[in-house]
Structures are given as C-alpha cells and as structure tokens.
C-alpha cells in the first residue's frame, strides 16, 4: 500500500498543474503559422465592414476572409457556384429554392450556423430596414450612428440585390427556403453574390449600435476581425474552428498605403508581404527584385465607355458606332497593359455558362467603316466632350489620350475634359458626351450586369444618359423569364442593341489587377477582386 506523505501530495499537485498548463503551452508552441501584412491603397470606401454598405471593389478584397454565403463562388476556378454554408440546394418551383445548411459550421463567436441566422441575415433588422425609420439630419445626424436603425443606403442596396424577395422560411434548424414574388432563374446567383453573406444573429443583437456592428462584424469566414482602424489598418486573426479547416495564417494585417511608390518600397524592403493595386507600368519595378514577383491577371470586370445620346453630336447612333469602330482595342491592351489583359466578347463573361455568347464580339477596329458611318450621319466635326477622371481606373488618362488620337484619325473631334470626381462626371449643367466606367457581374447571369447597369433601373438610364424602349422591355423579360433558350435569345438581342444598333456603351478591355508579393509564398489570385487566404491557397515554400 502506498503511503500518502507531504511529498507525494506536492508531487501530485505539481503533476495536476502541469496537466492543466502543458496542453495550452503545447498549442501555443505549435502555432508556428506566419502572420502577413498586405499593403492596400484603401481597405474600404465607406469605412464599414458591412457588405451591404460597402459596395466597392476594394471592399470585395477582404470580405471573403470574414464572411461566407450559403452558395459560394469558386475563387480557385472561374467563380462557378459551389457549396458554401449550404451543402446542397434544389429548386422547389420557379420562385423557390430550398437549401440544406452545413451542420457544425460556426460563427466567430462560437455559435453554430442555423436557419434562424439565415432568416435574420435577410430580414428587416439587418437588410431591408423597418418601416417608419427616422430620417437623418443635415450633416449632424446619422441613422445607425448610435442606434440599430440601418443607414438608408443599406435597405436601398438590399432592395437592388433582392428586388422581389417575398420571404425566407426556416423549414427546420438546418433547412431554409428562399421564396421570390416572381419566377427568377437567378435566385441561386443572388444567394451566392456579395451582400448575401450570412451573419450571426446573436452578435448583431448584442452590438451597441449598427455602426459598432459594421465595424466589428461576426461572420463564418476563415478569419475574424480583431481590430479595424478606418483608413489605417484592419487586423484579422485565424478562426481555428473554421469549417474548412484551420486557416494557414495566424494574423493578416491590411494596412493603408495610399502611394504606389510607398507600397512597392515597403514590399521590396520586406515590410509588407503583399502590395496590392500595382499599375502595369510598375510591374518591372517589382520584378527586378529577385525575391518578389507579380501575381494577378484578369478579373470579372470590364472597362467601358458610356455615351450620352442626348448630346447633339451623339444623337445619331451611327456617330456612336463610328466611335466604337475607330478604337484599336488590342493596341491599347498591348501598349498600356503590356498584353496582360484582353479584349472581351462584349459585356459578358464566360462564367455566364449557357448564357455566354461565344460568337459575339465588340465592334471591330475598322477606321474606313468609321469614316463611312460618319459621312452617312452627316457629322460635321462638332466637338464631343469626353469627361475623364485622373486615373480612377488604371491607365485611365493615358487610355483617354490614345482614344482621342484614334478618334481624330477618323475625323471625330473629341475633347478631353479632366474632372475631379464622379459628381462632376455626371453633372448635367453642361453637355455630357462620353465618359469612362467599369462593369462587373456579381453573379453568373446577364441580369447582374447588362440589366442592372444599363437597364431601366441601371445607372446609365437613371442619370439620363441613355435609354432604349426595346432594351427596357427585354430587361423585364430577362429578369422574369424561366425559358432558358428564350432568355439566351433576349440577352443576344440586348447586346445587339446596346453595343451595335443604339450604342449606350462600348467595352474597351477586361480589367486586370496586379499584386506584388514574396516569391516564396504560394498563392493564386482569384478571377475577382477577392483575395483567398484559405488553407488550399496559401503556403510558404521552404528554402
């Protein structure tokens, strides 16, 4: 029989303490994951991390790390729809989609994702707003600043994302149904798009105000928000209970470095691991350093020119078409982008799948045809204003200068007017002519782009730049028809109207984004603005 002495008791006590302490110590020791710093021009435009308010390209970059949708877009391929927080989904009818939730998926606060959270994410408190919400005051009050009321732009964005959502039903704890007011073949696409991310109901309810929530949101992504200092930095930490497995990075820090030169200097001096938004002419600056490289390429965004057909010289569609035929797009791609982007097939993307028209193309470069069209239209050399921002888009100013010369070569008298901001671009107090824009497709259907941006509720028509009666009728049909061959034909006809018969815009080239990074980091850019830092897409090569 073992005797219990003071010494054995002490030994047992030490051993018991060690049992409690050692595992934690071991975990801490085992966490040898790297932390990385990413230099960006801007973290978000609207200074919140709420996807419904942050509708910018820069915001898209980090949302994937914090939030997830029920259906995800495959960032490692061509944005095809793949299971996200829903493991499977099926159509009940033309208006209804039923989704089965992933069991065990957790929010950053440890709660399991349930149908209740999904219903809440698409409900009035978070998305569509309560009726009768108070209005803000001139410069001194803001809804959402100190209360849970949504800023009015949030419900407005939500209504654009979900124009006809009737309700969401929780069938059981792990099953939800999206019911639309009208037939809609794009429901799955809308579920997968930015703005439809699922949030924690409890975390939203516990936040002191909407603004507090929007600065420290709780999603299910691989990284959780640790600290957000607007216009300065955003720190994310690995969420180890992430359903796709332990994230490969311990901490990600996005830091705002507004100047390109400073981002590059910071990268090559080892202060940053990634430097985003590198313009094409600066790529050699990064690549001349052996330890760094440029990663990136095409994303789902096209650069376009928009026409204001109210301008006297642009009333005749032949003048607008002549402008389209006068542009040597491939020359712009080769000269200003070093061939790192391409001329796409009009305002469409391959991930439209069956809706994609592979045989469609932008108006060909044909100066003789342009001259002929101008003669037929009786163009007499009147001035056409072209409002340009100073490199809001990459290479914007130099592209404008190239375009002016191309137009001059066929006899078009286009004059650049440099503007400071979008308000001045849209200003109706003086005659508008041509301006720059870019369009993305948030989901895999033409409704997400040609209808949303050039249809009756799209920006071009809303600001009174362009309209076309047939286009507007077809927009409604494309949104509501479930006859897939007919929808394909309708989309084709829309391309014909918008890009040839009565040009509202013309596509110049696809957008490409470039990120400077350490060569020893294995990381593949997504075909979108999003940056994917999940375990399948991040690894540091051993020397």
């Amino acid at each position, binding site marked *: 029989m073992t005797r219990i002495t003071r010494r054995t008791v002490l030994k047992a006590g030490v051993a018991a303490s060690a049992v409690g302490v050692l595992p934690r110590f071991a975990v801490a020791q085992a966490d040898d994951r790297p932390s990385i710093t990413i230099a960006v021009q801007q973290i978000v*435009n*609207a*200074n*919140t991390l709420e996807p419904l*308010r942050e*509708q*910018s*390209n820069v915001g898209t970059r980090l949302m994937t790390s914090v939030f997830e949708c029920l259906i995800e877009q495959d960032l490692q391929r061509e944005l095809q729809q793949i299971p996200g927080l829903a493991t499977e989904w099926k159509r009940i009818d033309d208006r209804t989609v039923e989704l089965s939730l992933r069991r065990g998926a957790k929010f950053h606060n440890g709660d399991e994702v349930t149908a209740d959270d999904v219903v809440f994410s698409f409900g009035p408190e978070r998305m569509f707003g309560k009726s009768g919400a108070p*209005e*803000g*005051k*001139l*410069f*001194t*009050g*803001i*809804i959402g*600043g100190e209360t849970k009321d949504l*800023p*009015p*732009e*949030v*419900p*407005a*964005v939500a*209504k*654009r994302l979900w124009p006809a959502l009737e309700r969401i039903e929780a069938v059981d704890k792990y099953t939800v149904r999206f019911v639309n007011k009208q037939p809609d073949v794009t429901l799955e696409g809308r579920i997968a798009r930015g703005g439809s991310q699922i949030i924690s109901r409890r975390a939203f309810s516990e936040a002191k105000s909407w*603004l507090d929530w929007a600065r420290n949101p709780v999603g299910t992504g691989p990284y959780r928000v640790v600290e957000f*200092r*607007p*216009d*300065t930095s955003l720190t994310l930490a690995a969420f180890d209970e992430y359903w796709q497995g332990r994230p490969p990075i311990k901490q990600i820090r996005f*830091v*705002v*470095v*507004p*100047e390109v*030169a*400073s981002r590059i*200097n*910071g990268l090559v*001096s*080892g*202060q940053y691991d990634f430097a985003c938004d590198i313009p094409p002419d600066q790529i050699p600056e990064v690549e001349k350093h052996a330890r760094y490289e440029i990663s990136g390429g095409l994303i789902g965004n096209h650069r376009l020119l928009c026409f204001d057909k109210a301008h006297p010289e642009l009333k005749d569609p032949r003048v607008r078409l002549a402008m389209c035929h006068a542009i040597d797009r491939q020359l712009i791609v080769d000269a200003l982008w070093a061939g790192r982007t391409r001329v796409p097939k009009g305002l469409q993307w391959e991930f439209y799948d069956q809706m994609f028209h592979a045989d469609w193309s932008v108006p060909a470069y044909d100066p003789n045809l342009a001259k002929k069209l101008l003669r037929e239209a009786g163009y007499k050399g009147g001035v056409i204003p072209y409002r340009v921002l100073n490199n809001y888009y990459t290479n914007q100013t130099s592209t404008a200068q190239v375009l002016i010369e191309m137009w001059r070569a066929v006899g078009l008298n286009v004059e650049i007017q440099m503007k*400071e*901001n*979008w*308000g*001045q*671009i*849209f200003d109706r107090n003086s005659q508008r002519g041509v301006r720059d*824009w*870019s369009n*993305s497709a948030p989901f895999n259907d033409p409704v997400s782009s040609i209808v*949303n941006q050039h249809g009756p*509720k*799209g*920006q071009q028509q*809303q*600001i009174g730049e362009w309209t076309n009666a047939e286009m507007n009728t077809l927009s409604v049909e494309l949104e509501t028809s479930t006859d897939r061959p007919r929808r394909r034909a309708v989309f084709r006809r829309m391309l014909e109207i918008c890009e040839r018969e009565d040009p509202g815009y013309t596509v110049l080239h696809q957008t490409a984004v470039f990120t400077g990074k350490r060569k020893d980091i294995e990381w593949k850019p997504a075909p979108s603005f999003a940056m994917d830092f999940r375990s399948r897409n991040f690894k540091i090569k051993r020397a």
Partner: protein
Amino acid sequence: MLRYLSTRLVRALLTICFVVTFAFVILRLSGDPALLILSPDAPPEAIEAFRKSWGLDRPLWEQYFHYFAAIAEGNLGRSMRDGRPALDLVLERVPATLALTIPALILKIGIGIPAGIYAALNRNKLADRLTMLFSVAGFTVPSFVLGLVLVLIFAVNLGWLPSGGSDSWVHGILPIITLGTAGAAVLARFTRSAMLEVLGQPYIRTASAKGLAWRRVVVDHALPNAAIPTVTIVGFMVGSLVAGAVVVESVFSWPGVGRLLVVAVANRDLAVVQTILLFVALTMVCANLTVDMLYGWIDPRLRTRRVAGAG
C-alpha cells in the same frame, strides 16, 4: 492691451467665418459625397437614399444655414463617411500628427537657426556657401521627393528603417527628417538674412568699437535684434503643427490629421474638413497672438509703441 486682444479676436472670428463659408461652398459645389463615399457602382437608389438622409437633396442655402447654426451651437457635425462625430475623428488623429510635427519643429529650430547664424558670421566664406547650398537644396526639393529618396536609401537599400506606417517610434524617423529638412532650410535662410542685416547696423559697429568681445556683440546685440523675423517664421511653423504634414503623412502612410484631411476632401466629407479647418485656423490664431506677444518681449520698443497707440 485688452482692446488690442479683442480686436485680434474679432478679426480671427471673421476669418474663421469666412473660411467655413468658403469651404462649404467649394466642397458642396464641386462634388457629390454620396457618389464619392458609396462609389459610382452603388445602386442609384442607394445613392439617392444617402443624399436624402444627409439632407444633400435640399437647397444649398438651407444646407448652409443648418450647418452654420449647428456650428454656432457647438455641434461640428458627423462624418458622412464614418458616421461618428467629426470632432472625435479629428481629435483621434491629432496626437499622431503632433508626434511628427513637434519633433520636426525642434529639428527645424535646432538645425535651421544655428546654421543661419553660422552662415551669417562666416559670410561669403566656404562655410557660408555650403550652408546656403544645402539650404537651397532642402528648400527646393519637394517633400514627397525627399521622402521617397530617404525611403529608397534607408529602407530599401540599407534596410535600417521602415518605409512607412506608425507602429513604433522608429517609423517616425524618416517622416520627421523629411518634414524637418525643408523647415530647417527655410529658417537657416531667414536667420542668415536677419543676422546679416543686423550685423551691418551702426550699433553693432559701436559695440565692437567700445571693445566688447565679438561673442558678446553677437549674443547680446545681434541675436535679439535678428530674432523678430525668425520668430515670425517659427510662429507660422507652430501654426501649421496640426495640418502641416499632409504630403509627408501620405508618403509615409502616417495616420494623422493630414491624411484625414486628404481623404475627407476627396470624399467631400464636409463636417470633417470644416473641423480640421477650424483647428488649423485656431492654431494659427493662437500662434499669431503668441508671436505678437513675443515681439513685445523681444523688442521693448514695440511694446511701448503698442501701449501708446492704444492710449
């Protein structure tokens, strides 16, 4: 003295009213905050809702009077972009800016004034010419160029210092040197000119002729008389402590008032811009008042003249 001070205060208030009005008109007529903050890709109805919620859809005169009335009540408004009180946003950034501008001011004074005195005392000698060469170079090279050159040397090539950010005091070294260099160059030139003018005065010759040691002539007679223009320049530098580092803060990604101002102007975030302008105006007014009082302390003749004028 009281009458003098009250006149200056009324003038300062009028200046501030003018600044506020000017900024309001320029900012409101030259851009739409809704498009800038929400981005042109936001749905038109969201942009419209934003305009409505902030009253940007109301007539300009109504916006102006509401805004002015709020300021008069001490309410500087909220940031349209950030949603928080503009004053809080600005006050948050002031320490970061002062962490750059105060050491830079010490650097300017510590290098600029001795260099100017040294150059003046060695007029037309090699030391004078070299000092002025560096001074002209420091004065003419734009701060963003100097900043980038320093980064290339000390961060990229030597790897001694960080290229930007604000994580530690080490991050402040390059921006402080960049800020300090141009100011030191300006001070050196002004100090030299002032000293040369004073050194040519008859009382300096008299003091020397009396047999006073040259050091005492310089310290007791030349320096106090040359101090007036130098103090004026230093006063301007003190006045620009709050928002005098706009370019340097951008180059070095330093989260101070200058960066906030750039972002607020770009987004036409009126309340934030106005709050910063008020701060700048306030520091300028305070600096000017202090300088005015220092004039009297440095040169008793000015004090006597002021009292006589007031009487």
